[in-house]
């Protein structure tokens, strides 16, 4: 490495170009480092927000399922009668024509 630097430092043509290249590389790496770190932080914040939204939605879903199950459990004949739904079973007559059965 030292020999390369010495060789470059001795060459009048290569020396300025090498130095500029070196400074450009340092500058570019610094910019890239700042960009990637900023991108990671932004993505992490965004990801945290989304996870929180998902968690809230899951909680809402659990609550809705609990209410749905509670409601489903109520649906029975007693509930129907309490809501004045009348059993029409006695009034239904089944009529068979040929091979099919239809309901009158």
């Amino acid at each position, binding site marked *: 490495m030292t020999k390369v*630097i010495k060789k470059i*430092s001795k060459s*009048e043509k290569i*020396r300025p170009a090498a*130095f500029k290249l*070196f400074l450009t590389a340092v500058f570019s790496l610094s910019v890239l480092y700042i960009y990637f770190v900023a991108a990671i932080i932004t993505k992490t914040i965004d990801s945290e927000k989304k996870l929180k939204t998902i*968690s809230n939605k899951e*909680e809402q*879903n*659990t609550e809705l*399922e*609990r209410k*749905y*199950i509670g409601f*489903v*459990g109520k*649906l*029975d*004949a007693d509930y129907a009668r309490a809501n004045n739904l009348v059993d029409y079973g006695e009034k239904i007559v*089944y009529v068979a024509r040929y091979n099919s*059965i239809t309901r009158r």
Partner: protein
Amino acid sequence: MKNEFKFRIRLVYFFVSLLGIVLITRLFFIQVVRGDYYAKEANRQHFSLSAAGFDRGSIYFSEKSGRVISAATVKDGFQVVINPMDIKDSEAVYHEISTIINIDKNYFMERAGRKNDPYEVLAHRVDEDAAKKIKQLNIKGLSVFKEYWRYYPADNLASHVLGFVGYRGDELIGRYGLEAQYERVLERNSQKSSVNSFAEIFSDIKKIISGDPQEGDIVLTIEPTVQFMLEKEVNKIMEKYKGSLAGGIIINPKSGEILAMSTMPNFNPNFYSKVDDISVFVNPVVENVFEMGSIIKPLTLAAALNEGSIRPDTVYDDKGYMMFDSARVSNYDNKARGIVNMQEVLNQSLNTGAVFAMQKLGKEKFSEYMINYGFNEKTGIELPNEVNSKISNIIKNKRELEYATASFGQGIAITPIAMIKSLIGLANGGVIMQPYIVKEINIKGLKNKKTEPKIIRQVLKKETSEEISRMLANTVDKALLDGKYKMNNYTIAAKTGTAQIAKKEGGYYDNEYLHSFFGYAPAFDARFLTFLFIEKPQGVQYASHSLTIPFMNITKFLLNYYEVPPDR
């Protein structure tokens, strides 16, 4: 020029060295000064989390439409924690917190008084709003942390099937039911499961290579509306007749899919720790055996019909009793009916008729059929702690009395799940199907494992199944409570059983019975088979009086709910 370049190079060396010193200093602080902190953070990415980071796979019911509903899931909230060493004015802190959450003052003061303890939990499962308000108080020593727990949205529904998650020592694992049976599928935090994505990749590859069960969620065959309805009816039976326990199973006889399974008394798995008598966690459908009584008679008659030993119009002379050496086997009322046919054996539930059919079939053949019905093996249902039925007294036994009593369901003890497995052979063309309760396991990232209906064996001919169904439908139309519950547009095949309960020391109790009832509809194209039982019912003698109405309610509901067209 050369000197200028050398100066620039030295300047660059200086800045690089400065940067190196900064980095080394930073490394020193990270590795030496805060090394422990970062080691713990790294461990958290690779090792199991505490209960505060609890996670578990879900269990779902499946509706008839195919939609899934959560039966067991993970809920999140917050726990309120104090550091008693930092609490200066306990009264003031209590006053502030008590306006937000409900805490007993003595409890709080006792916890806050533990000055040598840096960590005391005041409340669990606090909601987000309350947690935010507590955080906003900004009191030193008072914190809130996220916590997760197992939650059963449907409370008591199918509690024996689901089981619950509880502590065994320091470990939160599935206890009872499917939570225990599928612990390795449902667990998420055991054995150093990682949250770091790179570590997770290697961990998953290792699992695949070693063949470990994959993590997943479980979808059940249980239909929640049907389950609700069955639980209500079983509960009504318990309330009315105050038995020691009661239960029911509804199954699709063509596939073996269990649509509902219920036992009372049951429990709420969200509050399992509040249960006084832990025997309630036992699932008698798989863990208890019962002498089933007369519901065995259709199996006996079907076996004899299948071998051609009898026909439905075969007659015998019923004297009301039969003698086997000094032992007397009699009808339930000790009465003789004279010349009766096999239909009357079912209609009037004649013990002597069942013995006659067994004798015509022969002891060895009878024993063979009982084994083929599945009574000598576990069903293999996906629930833990299944026990074997007890029929050893009719296997290679020389005493004919044992076979005689077994023919009408006494002297042999069967689990309810084994009973229903044998009965579906009557309803579906003579095939014993594997009963199952897990429809599907949804594996993360891989193909789902679906349960397919499985034929165990063909035990009866199709014609025999039709014949016995015809006889059982006749029983419902003409004999069950004098045909009062006949349905004009649907054929229903059914049979009741009233069995004496055996004493441990031998013999039977005089006034203690097991009532059982099974039936299926439509009789010749069965969509559902329902089995109900109640142990030691009070104030009622026969199963026809205790279980007919609940069975009919369940059957009518099922026929309507699944829109089954009439078959007559």
